[in-house]
């Protein structure tokens, strides 16, 4: 079957009606609906994840350089402005985590014994994994 579809307005001489009205989209369209605003904030979380990478590398570099550099890094990261930035970043990252786990069942069609697994258990598995990894990382860092 190698049919290709037609998509044309039939009839002779084409449309003669008046032009339809197209509503313009404002630049800040995402301020008009709560759901759109949440979406844009979610997308902005990417910026803070990038910031975290920068922060992590600065710290790693400082640790590698020696204990003096590490102390300097600690002084810098203890400034209220840096802490505030990290608090905001953490809030965005948490928004990312929650929305990410919430959307995970959308992309995955997990099948167990022929049956599609419902979204609930998939989300729960993500949270469980998150808890385990968080505990492991915390243990590794704090055990010293």
């Amino acid at each position, binding site marked *: 079957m190698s049919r290709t579809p037609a998509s044309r307005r039939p009839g002779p001489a084409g449309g003669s009606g008046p032009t339809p009205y197209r509503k313009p989209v404002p630049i800040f369209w995402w301020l008009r609906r709560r759901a759109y605003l949440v979406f844009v904030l979610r997308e902005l979380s990417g910026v803070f994840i990038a910031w*975290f990478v920068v922060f*992590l*590398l600065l710290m790693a570099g400082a640790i590698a350089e020696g204990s003096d550099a590490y102390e300097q890094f600690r002084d810098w990261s203890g400034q209220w402005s840096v802490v505030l930035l990290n608090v905001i970043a953490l809030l965005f990252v948490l928004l990312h985590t929650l929305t990410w786990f919430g959307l995970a069942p959308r992309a995955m069609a997990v099948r167990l014994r022929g049956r599609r697994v419902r979204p609930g258990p998939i989300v729960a598995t993500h949270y469980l994994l998150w808890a385990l990894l968080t505990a492991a990382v915390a243990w590794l860092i704090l055990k010293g």
Partner: protein
Amino acid sequence: MARRSPEPLLWLLFSAGGMAAALLVPVLLFLFGIAFPLGWLSAPDHTHLLSVLRHPATKVILFGLCLLCLFHWAHRFRYTLYDGLRLKNLSLVISLFCYGGAVAGSVAAGVVLFRI
């Protein structure tokens, strides 16, 4: 049919980054960015951290985390500029900036981490 669109691979990197970030970034950011600076928890000493960082597994994991996070940022930021600021007509510049940034950042991460 060999159409080579980079989108699928970029999306895979974005997705992997999203997952890695969701799982690992909150605890790291909370500890090093907030809890230790504010003294809620006593910060680990330099020797301990250095020994953790020197472990090859840590290096590989952190490098992977940085790379994926950066590509995650790049993908999202690109679409935020496209849609949120309606700049799709600048798509080439934006793509270069975002993914170029991610590549550069990843190289920097490699240099920092693997020199420890």
